[in-house]
C-alpha cells in the first residue's frame, strides 16, 4: 500500500483522554510544532477542575482541540475533523462533536469491560456499529507503547504513561509535522529524568513509525504554512500574553510593578509567569487572600508603583471593597479578571463572560471605573497596556476582562513593533500647587486638570508635599475630610465625569461592514471575537450582509458607538452570559439590542452565530 500525500487547507484535531493521560501536553506540543511550521492556528484546551478526577470517568476527561490552517483563522474550530480518544470515557464525552465521516483514532487497548462500564457504555462502541458514521482507526496504543519502550528500563506502569507520545508521534506523522524539532524538545524537557526521556522518545518514534508502516492509513496530509505578514511570531496563550503585557506596561511607564494576588483558576498562570520575571522590575506577592492581594497592589500604587491584581470568579467579589477605596483615593490600579463560569465556585475551568455587570456596578455607592476587554489570546498584550495606560494616567482602578478561553487558548502572535509602543507618563507632582491665605505654599492632592479632571499625585518621599488621603469623602482640591453636602455631590459628579471623559482619549469603534450597507450589526466584546468574526465570514460566504463591531472599551463606550448603532436596523449582541452588554446598550442608547446568549462554559461556534443570524433574517 502506498500512502497518498494530500494537501489540506485546514484541519481541526481534538486529543481527548483521562486527566492523567497528558492530553494537554500532547496538544500543546502539536500546536507548538505547527506554529514553528508556520500554520495559522487556534487552540481550545478543556479540562476538569479536579487535579486528577477518577480515572476512566466522563468527569475525568481532559481534551485539547487545535485548529491549524494555511490561511488565517479565527477560532479553534467548531467540530473536529479528527478525534483521538485514549479511552472509552474520552470517546463518549467527545464523539458527538466529531464531524460526520471524521477520523476517529482510538486506543483500543483501553476498551475493556471495566473501562466501558466506567464510561457508562453498555455495549462496546467499537463493535456495536454505533461509530459507523466515522472512519475509525483502532490502534492498541498501550501495548505498542509498552513494546516500544521495553528497552528503556522504564517499569511497565511508567512506560505506559508515554502513550500520549505515541499518539503525538502518530498524529505528527499524519499531518507531516516537523520531526526533529519535537525530538529536540523532548530531549530538552526531560533532560533530568533519563528513563522518562528515553521512554517518551521511544513512544514518539514508535507512533511516527506506526503511521508510516502500519498500512492502516491510506493517506497523510499536509497543511501548508499560512501566508503571514512579515515579522517574528510566537505562539502564545492569553495568560502568557497578559503577563507580558503587565511587564511591558511597567517598562513603558518606568514604574515598578507589584502583582498582589491569590492563586485561582484560571488566573494563576499570570502569577506563575510574572514570578519568573524578577529582572524586569516586577515583584510578585502571593497574599493571604484576594483582599490582601488587591490591598497590597493599591499600597504599591500609592508608593508610585503600578499595582496589579489578577483573579477570577469569587476572587473578583472579594476585591470590591478595595476597588471602592481606590476610586475614592483616585489611585492607579489594574485588576485583571480572567472570567470563569459562575455563580459561586461554578465551573472553575470553564469560560464565561458573566462579570461585565459586576465590573460596572459591583461596588456600593456611586463608584465608576473604566472597563476594558481583550478579544483574542495575543490581544491580551495590548489590552493590558491600554488598561494600564488609563489606570496610570487617570489615577483610577481599571478592570480588564479576559476569560478562561482566552487564558488557555493559543494563537500565533506577531511580535509588536517596539517603536510603536507609546510610553506612559505617570506625571507625579514634585511641587507645591496651592498658595495658602498667608502666602505660604502647600500641596493640594485633589487639584484637578480642568479638562481631564485628573488629580495631582505626589509620592511619599517627596519633601514638602506630605499630605493625607483616605476613603472618607473629601473636599475637592484640598482633599481634607468634608461632610459638606454640595461638595459630596460635586465629588460624585467629578468622579463620574472623569471616567466618562476618557471617551476623548480612546480609539473609535471600528466597523467591519465591507459594503457599508448591512442591516444587521453583530456587536461583541471579549473572547467572542473569533467566533463572531468567523460566523460573519460564513454569512458573507452565503452573501448575507452583516456588520461586526467588537468593543475594546466597555466603559466608557467609544464616542462613535451611538452613531454606529443607530445606523443598523438590528443589533444582535452574542455573549457567553445572559445578555450583560445588551443590557448596558439598551439602557444607554435605548436601542432594542437583541441578546444572543450561550452559557455552557464553552465559546460560541461560528456555525451557531451563522445559524442565529440566518434564523433571525428568516423570521423577520
Amino acid at each position, binding site marked *: 500500500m502506498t500512502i497518498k500525500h494530500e494537501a489540506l487547507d485546514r484541519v481541526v484535531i481534538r486529543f481527548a483522554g483521562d486527566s492523567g493521560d497528558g492530553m494537554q501536553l500532547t496538544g500543546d506540543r502539536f500546536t507548538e510544532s505547527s*506554529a*514553528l511550521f*508556520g500554520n495559522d492556528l487556534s487552540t481550545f484546551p478543556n479540562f476538569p477542575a479536579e487535579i486528577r478526577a477518577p480515572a476512566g470517568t466522563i468527569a475525568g476527561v481532559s481534551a485539547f482541540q487545535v485548529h491549524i490552517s494555511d490561511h488565517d483563522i479565527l477560532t479553534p474550530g467548531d467540530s473536529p475533523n479528527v478525534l483521538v480518544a485514549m479511552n472509552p470515557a474520552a470517546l463518549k464525552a467527545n464523539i458527538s462533536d466529531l464531524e460526520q465521516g471524521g477520523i476517529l483514532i482510538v486506543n483500543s487497548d483501553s476498551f475493556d469491560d471495566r473501562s466501558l462500564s466506567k464510561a457508562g457504555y453498555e455495549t462496546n462502541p467499537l463493535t456495536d456499529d454505533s461509530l459507523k458514521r466515522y472512519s475509525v482507526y483502532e490502534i492498541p496504543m498501550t501495548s505498542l507503547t509498552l513494546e516500544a519502550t521495553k528497552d528503556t528500563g522504564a517499569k511497565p506502569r511508567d512506560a505506559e504513561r508515554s502513550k500520549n507520545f505515541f499518539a503525538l508521534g502518530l498524529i505528527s506523522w499524519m499531518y507531516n509535522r516537523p520531526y526533529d524539532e519535537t525530538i529536540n524538545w523532548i530531549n530538552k524537557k526531560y533532560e533530568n529524568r533519563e528513563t522518562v526521556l528515553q521512554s517518551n522518545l521511544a513512544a514518539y518514534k514508535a507512533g511516527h513509525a506506526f503511521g508510516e508502516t502500519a498500512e492502516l492509513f491510506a493517506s497523510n496530509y499536509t497543511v501548508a504554512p499560512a501566508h503571514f*505578514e*512579515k*515579522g*517574528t*511570531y*510566537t*505562539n*502564545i496563550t492569553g495568560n502568557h500574553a497578559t503577563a*507580558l503585557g503587565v*511587564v*511591558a506596561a511597567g*517598562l513603558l511607564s518606568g514604574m515598578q510593578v*507589584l502583582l*498582589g494576588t491569590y492563586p485561582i483558576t484560571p488566573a494563576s498562570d499570570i502569577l506563575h509567569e510574572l514570578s519568573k*520575571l*524578577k*529582572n*524586569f*522590575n516586577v*515583584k510578585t*506577592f502571593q*497574599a*493571604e*487572600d484576594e*483582599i*490582601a*492581594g488587591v*490591598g*497590597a497592589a*493599591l*499600597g*504599591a*500604587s*500609592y*508608593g*508610585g*508603583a503600578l499595582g496589579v491584581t489578577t483573579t477570577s470568579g469569587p476572587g473578583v467579589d472579594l476585591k470590591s*471593597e*478595595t476597588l*471602592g*477605596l481606590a476610586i475614592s*483615593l483616585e489611585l492607579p490600579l489594574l485588576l485583571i479578571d480572567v472570567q470563569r463560569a459562575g455563580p459561586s465556585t461554578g465551573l472553575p475551568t470553564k469560560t464565561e463572560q458573566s462579570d461585565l455587570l459586576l465590573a460596572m456596578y459591583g461596588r456600593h455607592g456611586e463608584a465608576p471605573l473604566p472597563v476594558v476587554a481583550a478579544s483574542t489570546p495575543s490581544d491580551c498584550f495590548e489590552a493590558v497596556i491600554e488598561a494600564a495606560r488609563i489606570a496610570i494616567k487617570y489615577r483610577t482602578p481599571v478592570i480588564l476582562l479576559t476569560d478562561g478561553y482566552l487564558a488557555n487558548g493559543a494563537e500565533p502572535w506577531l*511580535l*509588536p513593533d*517596539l517603536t510603536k509602543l507609546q510610553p506612559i507618563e505617570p506625571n507625579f507632582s514634585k511641587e507645591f500647587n496651592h498658595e495658602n491665605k498667608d502666602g505660604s505654599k502647600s500641596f493640594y492632592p485633589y487639584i484637578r486638570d480642568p479638562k481631564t479632571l485628573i488629580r495631582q499625585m505626589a509620592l*511619599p*518621599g517627596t*519633601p*514638602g*508635599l*506630605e*499630605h*493625607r*488621603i*483616605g*476613603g472618607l469623602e473629601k473636599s475637592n482640591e484640598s482633599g*481634607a475630610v468634608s461632610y459638606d453636602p454640595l461638595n459630596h455631590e460635586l465629588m460624585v459628579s467629578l468622579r463620574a465625569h472623569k471616567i466618562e471623559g476618557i471617551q476623548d482619549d480612546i480609539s473609535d469603534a471600528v466597523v467591519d461592514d465591507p459594503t457599508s450597507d448591512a442591516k444587521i450589526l453583530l456587536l461583541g466584546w471579549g473572547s467572542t471575537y473569533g467566533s463572531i468574526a468567523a460566523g460573519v465570514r460564513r454569512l458573507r460566504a452565503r452573501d448575507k450582509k452583516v456588520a461586526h463591531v467588537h468593543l475594546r472599551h466597555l466603559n466608557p463606550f467609544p464616542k462613535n458607538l451611538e452613531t454606529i448603532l443607530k445606523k443598523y436596523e438590528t443589533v444582535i449582541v452574542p455573549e457567553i452570559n445572559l445578555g450583560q452588554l445588551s443590557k448596558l446598550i439598551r439602557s444607554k442608547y435605548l436601542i432594542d439590542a437583541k441578546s444572543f446568549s450561550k452559557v455552557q462554559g464553552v465559546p460560541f461556534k461560528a456555525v451557531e452565530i451563522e445559524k442565529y443570524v440566518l434564523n433571525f433574517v428568516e423570521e423577520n
Partner: protein
Amino acid sequence: MTVTTRKDWASDQEVRWCPGCGDYSILAAVQLLMPELGVERENTVFISGIGCAARFPYYMNTYGVHSIHGRAPAFATGLALTRPDLDIWVVTGDGDSLSIGGNHLIHALRRNINIKILMFNNQIYGLTKGQYSPTSEYGKVTKSTPFGSVLSPFNPISLALGAEGTFVARTHDMDRNHMMEMMRRAHLHKGASLIEIYQNCNVFNDGAFSEITSKDKRADNLINLVDGEPIIFGANSDKCVVLDAEQGVRVADRSSVTEDEILIHNSKRQKPAIAFALSKLASGPHEPTPIGVFRDVEQHEYSESLQHQTEDALNKKGSGTIANLLSSLPTWTVN
C-alpha cells in the same frame, strides 16, 4: 540627620477624638519621638484602617492614608514591598486589627515585613459606639451584648507570638516614657513589630485598664519586663516571676524563692516559648500584667529578601527591556 521638633510632626488638622480619650497621649508620644529618631517627614508614612484610632494619620504631618477597616496591613505590605526606603507605621484599633483585620495582621507578622504596628487596644469598638471587640472580657455588657458577652477575648501578645511575631511589645497610654521606649525599640527592629497599647476609651469603656495602669496601682500590677533584669515587681518589690512546670511561668512571692530562681527577662530568646508564657501570666488587665518587649529577634525581613531575589535576577540576567522579554520567547520569522 535632620533636626525637627514635635511641632513639625503635627498636621494642621484639628484633632477629633473625644476630650479625655487615651488616643491623645499616644499621639503626643509619637510626635515627641519622631524628632528623636532623626527620620524625615517625607519618608514617613502612617497607614490606618477605620475606627477612632484610625484617625491618627490625619494628625501627623507626614504622608498618610486612612484606608478601610482592617486592611491597613495589606496596604502597608504593598507599599513596604515596593518602597523599602520608607518608614511605615500602621495605626489600628483592637477591632480593626483583631476582628475584621485578624488575618492580615497575623500574616504581616509571619512575613516579618518592615512595618511598625501600633494597636490601640481599648477593648471596645469606639467609632461605632460601643460594641464588644475581640479583646473585650468575658461577660462584657455592651450594646451588642446586653446580657454579657459569652466568649473569651484574644490576648494580642499571645496571638502575635503564635503568629511568629518577631517583635512583640505592650505598653499603655498613661506612661509616655514607656510608650516612647517601646516605639524606639520597634523602630530599631528590622521586620514587623507589634506594639499593643492599652488605651482608655473614656466614652464607651472608661477605666478598662485602671486596675493596672492608674498611678496608685501600677507598682503592684504592672510587671515591667526589662532585658537583662530579673522580673520583679510590687510596690515593695516583693513579687517576682519564676519558671513553672505547669504554667510555664508564674508569679511568686520573692520571699518564697531564691534570687537565682527569678526569671531574667530576655526579649532576644530565639524561641518564643518563654515570651508566650509571660503573655499568659495575666488573663486580663485586672491582675499583675507584663508590659515591655516580650520578643525582639532577628529574622529574614520579607521586603529585603524579595529585593535580594530581584537583585540576584538582575545580576544574572541584566535589567530587562521589552525587547529582551520578547526575544526570550520561542519564535519563528516570516520573511
